[in-house]
Structures are given as structure tokens and as C-alpha cells.
């Protein structure tokens, strides 16, 4: 079995200089100081704090200021999910030079659910499944050509069952 977990290739080197990364980096100087030469690990360490944020506003602030809404981002989720434990989501970006995709669930205790880095040769389209604690907006944040964009779609989740 291939046991290594080689982070050295994360993320593409171009990401290093991006504004929001520096912003995160500044807030987490300690983490960066420990791992100054592994960009993937630093990105992960910086995001760790954003994953802990409790409100959408703080999550978005953590990802970077100046996020513009864009109709070039498509979010596909069922209008109504039978159970919030598994809600399928596809985020597709038509924005040129898309490098990152973030999934944010507005009403979850920790809204940031997942972050993806999209290398050059990979389509800016990701499907995943997330937990949605209650009917809520799903927000896709996309980084394209160094700038952040977002789109929002509501999904309903239902209660069910015969007993406990």
C-alpha cells in the first residue's frame, strides 16, 4: 500500500502569492512559521481556522474580502433532500482560471464544509455530498484568476421516521 501522504504538491505554486492566502497567513503566522516550505500544509493550516468559524459572515471573511456573486457558477442540489445527512451537491464554474472551490452550508454549526483545489488540467466541476443540519442556503465560493466569486442555492431537508 502506498502509505505516504505527500503534501508537497499542494496546492499549485501560483496559489502562494494570492491575496487571501496572505491574509490567512498573516492571521496564522504561527502555523506558517512551523511549516514555511510546504505550501499545501500551510494552506490547510490556514483553512483550519476558517473551518472552525461559526457564521457564514466569518467564513466568507476568512476566505477573503470582496467576494462577488456570479452567474457563472452553477450549484446543483436537490430542491428537497430526504435526509440532511447526505445532500448531493455539484458545483460547476464557467469562470476562466478557476483554481479553488469552497462549499459552505449557511446554517450548519460550522458553515465551511469542504475546500477543493482545482489544478490546471482538472475541470472546474466537483460533485460531493454534505450534511445539511436544517433547510439552508448552500453557498459555493469559487476562486478564479485570483478573485473570489460566489453563488447561492437553497436546499430543504426533511424530518422523518416512525419513532426515534
Amino acid at each position: 500500500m502506498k502509505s505516504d501522504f505527500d503534501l508537497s504538491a499542494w496546492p499549485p505554486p501560483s496559489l502562494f502569492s494570492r491575496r487571501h492566502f496572505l491574509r490567512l497567513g498573516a492571521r496564522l503566522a504561527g502555523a506558517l512559521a512551523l511549516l514555511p516550505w510546504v505550501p499545501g500544509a500551510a494552506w490547510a493550516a490556514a483553512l483550519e481556522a476558517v473551518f472552525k468559524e461559526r457564521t457564514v459572515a466569518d467564513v466568507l471573511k476568512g476566505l477573503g474580502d470582496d467576494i462577488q456573486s456570479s452567474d457563472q457558477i452553477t450549484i446543483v442540489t436537490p430542491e428537497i433532500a430526504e435526509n440532511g445527512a447526505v445532500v448531493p451537491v455539484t458545483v460547476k464554474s464557467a469562470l476562466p482560471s478557476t483554481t479553488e472551490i469552497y462549499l459552505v452550508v449557511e446554517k450548519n454549526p460550522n458553515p465551511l464544509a469542504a475546500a477543493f483545489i482545482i489544478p490546471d488540467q482538472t475541470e472546474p466541476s466537483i460533485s460531493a455530498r454534505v450534511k445539511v443540519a436544517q433547510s439552508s442556503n448552500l453557498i459555493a465560493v469559487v476562486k478564479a484568476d485570483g478573485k473570489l466569486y460566489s453563488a447561492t442555492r437553497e436546499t430543504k431537508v426533511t424530518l422523518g421516521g416512525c419513532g426515534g
Partner: protein
Amino acid sequence: MFRRWTCVMAATLGVAFVVPLQAEGVADSFRAKGQAKLDRLDQTDMQRICSGPVGMTVPDDVRARLQKTATDSVKFPAADRFLGKWEAGQKIAQTGTGMQSSDDPAVPSGGNCYACHQMAPTEMSYGTLGPSLAGYGKQRGQSEAMLKYTWTRIWNPQAHMPCSHMPRFGDAGILTEEQIRDVMAFLFDPASPVNK
């Protein structure tokens, strides 16, 4: 227990009797767990009579007996206090746990009304085994007859509809008198979301 039932069923209802498959007896297929002991497999008179297949028939005199037993079981609240707090009733209507082998017997049971009934029109997750109760109090008012009728329907549905599949919430001790008052308020209170 099961075998006794099959014999009675065969005798009372004329259902074709088939020799039980397992010589060791069906109750051996269960084990006591938590609050659910093996005596729960024993049938009451009503349960035994109402265990026939779809299309089963029950003689009129047996129906009358079931209805009388159920009617006699109903205990109306002291001092005609039929209505409690609708907010508490709403919670009971939403709660599905209670009396399962996995439930803590110290925790009060829910009524799980939404499993089978529409109630507040704003709650979209409701079942359809029972009739819709949306607007229940608004449509019916709060006459003593209506309060008593509804109390009876909750306490022991067999009184009005023999072999109903709705639990006997009062008679079987699923809900307390206080809880039934709260559910009643959820149905009747003009401020309750049921009547909005």
C-alpha cells in the same frame, strides 16, 4: 401466546388454521430488552379480535363489546380541564420516541402525531395514515361535546372506531393526562399553529 392466539383466531373468525411452523413456539423468537418485556406479546381482547387480514369480518355483537370496553376505559380530566399548553402539545406531536425497547422509560413518551396526521399547515413533514387535523379547533369550536369527543379519540380511539390502528394514548398509558391536555390545546387553541 402466539399459538393461543392462532387457535382463538381460527375459532372466532373462521380463518383457515395452519399448523404453526415452529414447534418451539413463536415467543422464542423474541427476547426482553429494556422496558419491552415478553409480556408485550400477549394480546388484549381487542388486539386478538383485530388481528385478522385485510377484509376480515367481526360480528356486530363483538364490535359493540369492543366499543363498550373502550368507552368505559376513558377517564375525563378533573374539573373539566381539557386544555393545557399548545406549545407543549406541539412538542409532543413532533416527538416520536416512547416505550420502545431503546427508549429510556424515565423520559416522557411523545405522541408522534405527525407520523400519521397533518396538523400545523406550516409543518410539511407529516404522514397520511390518519386524517388531516389542520384547522381542527377552528373548524369545530370548543363545545363540551367536541372536547369530550376529541379527548375520547385520543384516550382510546377504539371507542369510536373499533380496530382503529391509532394507539390508545390514555388507556395504554403512553401519554399522561397532562400531556393529553397539551395535545388538546395544540388542536383547539386559536393561537396554536394548527388553527393558523
